[in-house]
């Protein structure tokens, strides 16, 4: 089983009130710079302690995840790491120009020497308010976007695209992606329809925050659709995203969780609204924590997910200090999870 560190690019300063959108005046310019430095440092540490992948999501207008363009942070990470896969989990299809995204990701794939993985998402309701997207259209936009990006990466000659939501009369992406034919493409596996779409179109899937029985149900749907389309997914085609509070022991993890719960309870109304599908602010509370405990307990949960078909574990570490959690995770899990194949 592969491990993936979901960094947040989160604001490291104190914010009096969050909500969505969070007023820009609450952002200290100095803390913004320090936040990016911290994010890069954590990604570098994730590679050092043994993670196989690192991931970066797209989110807007909030201090929890300051990555409106994950490709920019990914480009910086690509120059500070040498081994880990770099997973862009967005981009958010309804908010982007797909051809521009295809160009940028191809560029990133070259910059990182072929280490890019991409998950095209439709985003959460608050994010659809970012640039004025009609939420009713986001599913179809995302489906079209994925197919356009894949075409843009694979067509050897210029072409035009006359879509339902996108129209480009000239598409001719340079550079080509370092990976042949293109970086692995993931798609949401959270809903039945999206899992089946992914299977039908030869995509990998990402499932977020669901309990193992639900994960198994989605993986089974996905695999059935893939088989009907003539191919067989493996564990490497299934990513699971969850939040983790990891302690040296179960009671140490629970103590961290209790401290976080108290802090979240004291937060201003609206705290954490920037979260949802893409991950949210992992320190906003403990209600949505999928992995809580010491190494044995958390490893048991990871094994349960592996049995459900998951091959890549994407975790946002919450509480107790990211650096400490990353080191503990690497020490306690990386070797054990690598044995799950």
């Amino acid at each position: 089983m592969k491990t993936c560190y979901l960094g947040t690019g989160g604001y490291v300063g104190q914010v009096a009130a969050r909500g969505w959108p969070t007023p820009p005046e609450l952002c200290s310019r100095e803390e913004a710079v320090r936040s990016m430095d911290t994010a890069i440092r954590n990604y570098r540490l994730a590679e050092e302690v043994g993670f196989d992948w690192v991931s970066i999501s797209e989110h807007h207008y909030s201090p929890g995840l300051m990555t409106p363009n994950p490709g920019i942070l990914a480009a910086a990470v690509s120059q500070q790491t040498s081994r880990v896969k770099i997973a862009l989990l967005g981009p958010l299809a309804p908010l982007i120009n797909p051809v521009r995204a295809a160009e940028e990701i191809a560029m990133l794939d070259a910059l990182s020497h072929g280490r890019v993985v991409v998950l095209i998402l439709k985003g959460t309701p608050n994010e659809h308010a970012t640039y004025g997207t009609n939420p009713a259209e986001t599913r179809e936009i995302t489906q079209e976007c994925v197919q356009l990006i894949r075409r843009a990466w694979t067509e050897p000659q210029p072409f035009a695209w006359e879509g339902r939501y996108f129209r480009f009369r000239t598409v001719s992406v340079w550079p080509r992606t370092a990976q042949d034919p293109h970086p692995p493409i993931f798609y949401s596996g959270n809903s039945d329809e999206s899992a089946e779409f992914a299977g039908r179109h030869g995509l990998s899937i990402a499932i977020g925050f669901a309990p193992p029985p639900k994960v198994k149900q989605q993986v089974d749907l996905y695999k059935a659709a893939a088989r009907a389309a003539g191919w067989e997914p493996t564990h490497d085609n299934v990513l699971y995203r969850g939040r983790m509070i990891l302690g040296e022991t179960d009671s140490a993890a629970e103590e961290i969780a209790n401290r976080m719960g108290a802090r979240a309870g004291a937060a201003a109304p609206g705290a954490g609204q920037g979260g949802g599908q893409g991950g949210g602010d992992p320190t906003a509370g403990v209600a949505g924590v999928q992995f809580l405990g010491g190494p044995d307990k958390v490893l048991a949960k990871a094994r349960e997910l592996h049995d459900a078909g998951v091959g890549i574990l994407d975790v946002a570490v919450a509480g107790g200090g990211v650096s400490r959690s990353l080191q503990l995770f690497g020490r306690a899990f990386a070797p054990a999870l690598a044995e799950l194949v």
Partner: protein
Amino acid sequence: MAAIEAGTGRPVLVLGAGPGDAAGLAALAARFSICRLEAGDAAAWIAAQGEPVGIVGVGEAATWALEAAAAAGEQAKALVLVSPAGLALDPETGASPLALEIRAARCVLIGDRDPAAAPLAAWRRALPRCHVVLVYDAAAALIADRPDAFASAAGDFLDRQERFAFMTESLARA
């Protein structure tokens, strides 16, 4: 000659379209004076116009459209082939010998669910210097599947040829 004429504007000859294509052709007729021929002398119709014309060939009528464009010489300004089928290609170059004879700017519209869409590059070999438009969510019955997309892409190419990549709709709002 069985001719069905509609619309106003510059003349466009449509060859090979069927009854299922009515909505797409109606949308095209909002911009052009179209004449749909099911059989007959295309060259005579073109010559009778006395001005530059556009030609649309649908499906198996692609060869007929290429022949008409070759015969029309400079008078054929733009040729649009929709889901072309049955073209004779040079086995060595993959090119249509007829395509080498035409002067018109040329464009191919292919549905992404049409098996002929893979690989798109083959169409650029078949019709050198042609523009290839991939129409999303359309199969071989492209005009019926996406009538508005057909009218938009074909119409813009018939109107502006290579400059169809430049949009003419304004983003400004009242």
